[in-house]
């Protein structure tokens, strides 16, 4: 008996239980969500390195029934989602006290976690869509949770664009079903590989691929589709910003792109249309890196700067994956593709850690000083030493300063890009890495160091409940950086299985269909 469905069942149960008993017991949200997130994190961490498992819902075998697949890639995302979810819940315990309707907040939070875990585990295209909608609907409501004018407007914008993305994804799912007669990802992958290998792309499948790419890129906020993110992330409460930037755009966007394109459509040399898809992935990534980075430089709102930075960093993640896909599609060396994909996945994990740390820190700063306008901040190092130190570590890490984890992942991506022969793109990536450094130096100068700003004079260090998650995430950021150099085996143990899943879609088919 394997317990993989519990990753969805536990948060879903908590999501419905919390608002129900919240009428009588006001603390239900805090207690139940912490307990379930602890359980989920332990389960996720325990499944690192375990062999891949397939769970058939209701006992129906794979092509007919609904499969739940926990392979390397899924486990990697599960760890990221649940561990960061736990830390965000701990941070919320204190931070969210100024809001009303807390049982609803925790209920929606658990619903969002349930949706993301479901997306990551689903082995079926339509279930992926359903869980994606669950997570999205919960996140729309959470962005607008403050119900002030800005929150509502950002939430409405996110809701409209997210709905368009969902419509596109559903259209694509329907088209794939019409062409292949199946919704199980492994079965669709086998059909596509068997019937359209080495031929011109079936136009219907090409349409489905384009719709999937647009829909998931909208969820991942890659550049032509990014308009909702710079509004939605700053407007949400800080723990939700951390979740949105840290894991939601990754599990709903980047993970879904990976799973659908690497494992379902396939990037083998014979796969139809794969070069076009890989090229568009690279194109969107480069645009994201450039636009996100340049837009971040001009921001004076701390959370808005972080939001634009998220766009740029997600661009790095998909650049690594896209270059890997292109190398696979043109049939060059597999080791190079493996390197590029490894870099992308490594940056994904790193970004989850340091961007959620930065957003949580911005929440701590906002709750201590009452503002997030960088012109009013400054000299936080004097007044809030712990928060300032963790923010500083995260900023150094994301800016790609050598001993920290962000440097290694960007280095791997850039090396892979250059070795694949894309010198121009490599140059852009290097240049934009320096731009990243520029705007984080700006954060350091105007927030952490310098003269004590007007709003900072009365500020005090936040309570332990708020800085403990920050310290833990900072340890992760530094730890990844040190481990990446001294203990490559640990990185291999965490990221290797995920990379192998993406490299070899035939293995995935064999795993699910037996």
């Amino acid at each position, binding site marked *: *008996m394997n*317990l993989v*469905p*519990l990753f969805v*069942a536990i948060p*879903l*149960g908590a999501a*419905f*239980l919390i*608002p*129900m008993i919240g*009428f009588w017991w006001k603390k239900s949200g805090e207690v139940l969500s912490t307990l379930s997130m602890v359980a989920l994190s332990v389960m996720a961490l325990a499944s690192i390195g375990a062999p891949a498992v397939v*769970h*058939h*819902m*209701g*006992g129906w075998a794979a092509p007919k029934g609904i499969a*739940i697949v926990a392979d390397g890639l899924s486990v990697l995302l599960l760890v990221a989602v649940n561990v960061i979810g736990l830390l965000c819940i701990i941070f919320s315990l204190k931070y969210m006290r100024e809001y009303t309707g807390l049982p609803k907040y925790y209920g929606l939070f658990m619903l969002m976690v349930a949706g993301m875990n479901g997306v990551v585990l689903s082995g079926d295209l339509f279930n992926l869509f359903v869980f994606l909608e669950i997570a999205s609907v919960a996140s729309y409501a959470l962005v607008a949770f403050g119900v002030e004018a800005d929150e509502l407007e950002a939430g409405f914008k996110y809701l409209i664009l997210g709905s368009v993305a969902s419509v596109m994804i559903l259209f694509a799912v329907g088209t794939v079903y019409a062409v292949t007669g199946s919704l199980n990802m492994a079965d669709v992958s086998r059909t596509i590989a068997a019937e359209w290998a080495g031929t011109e792309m079936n136009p219907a499948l090409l349409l489905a691929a384009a719709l999937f790419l647009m829909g998931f890129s909208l969820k991942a906020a890659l550049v032509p589709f990014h308009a909702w993110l710079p509004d939605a992330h700053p407007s949400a409460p800080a723990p939700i910003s951390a979740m949105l930037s840290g894991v939601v755009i990754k599990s709903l966007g980047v993970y879904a792109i990976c799973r659908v394109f690497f494992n379902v459509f396939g990037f083998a040399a014979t796969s139809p249309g794969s070069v076009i898809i890989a090229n568009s992935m690279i194109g969107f990534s480069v645009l994201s890196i450039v636009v996100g980075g340049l837009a971040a430089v001009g921001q004076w709102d701390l959370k808005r700067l972080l939001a634009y930075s998220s766009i740029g960093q997600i661009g790095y993640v998909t650049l690594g994956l896209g270059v890997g896909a292109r190398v696979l599609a043109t049939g060059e060396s597999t080791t190079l593709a493996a390197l590029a994909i490894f870099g992308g996945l490594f940056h994904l994990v790193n970004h989850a850690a340091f961007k959620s740390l930065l957003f949580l820190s911005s929440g701590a700063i906002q709750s201590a000083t009452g503002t997030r306008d960088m012109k009013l901040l400054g000299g936080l190092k004097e007044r809030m030493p712990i928060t300032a130190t963790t923010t500083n570590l995260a900023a150094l890490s994301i800016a790609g300063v050598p001993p920290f984890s962000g440097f290694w992942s960007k280095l791997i991506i850039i090396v892979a890009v250059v070795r694949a022969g894309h010198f121009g793109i490599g140059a852009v990536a290097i240049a934009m890495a320096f731009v990243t450094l520029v705007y984080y130096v700006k954060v350091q100068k105007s927030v952490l160091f310098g003269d004590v700003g007007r709003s900072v004079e009365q500020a005090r260090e936040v309570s332990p409940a708020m800085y403990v998650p920050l310290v833990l995430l900072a340890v992760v950021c530094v730890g990844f950086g040190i481990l990446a150099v001294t203990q490559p085996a640990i990185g291999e143990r965490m990221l290797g299985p995920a990379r192998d899943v993406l490299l070899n879609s035939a293995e995935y088919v064999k795993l699910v269909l037996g």
Partner: protein
Amino acid sequence: MKGLTVIVKTITDFVVAFIVIFGAYIVLYGHLTPGGGFAGGVIVACAFILLMLGHGKEVAFSRLGERMGHVLDSAGALAFLLIGWIGLAGGYFFLNVFGRGDQFRLLSSGMILPANIAIAFKVGTSLFIVFAALAVFRRRSFRSMIEDELS
């Protein structure tokens, strides 16, 4: 006077019970005939919505309070999840561990019937709550709109 005219109120009182019974039939025979928890739940919710339209929201809330609605809503979802957990005891999530029974009998097909009832509670109460929430909203914001228009 709250609600609509006396004709509508009389007909509503007369019809509501039948609508609820029909909804319950659709739910309970969902595994044998077309229908099921979702359709039946919607029909039952329609009865309450009709009540609210005919008599105003106070009467509807006296039959099904807002808090009671929320509790039933969550309870339905939890019951459905619980059915999944029972299946997990047999090795797979949502495994139909109960006996299948004879075909075309009311007590057959194992967990489908309890699942339908759970879904009916979930869907019925949540549709009612959504409608009630929007109706409460409407009263507040559109009055101010009309006042704006008049001034």
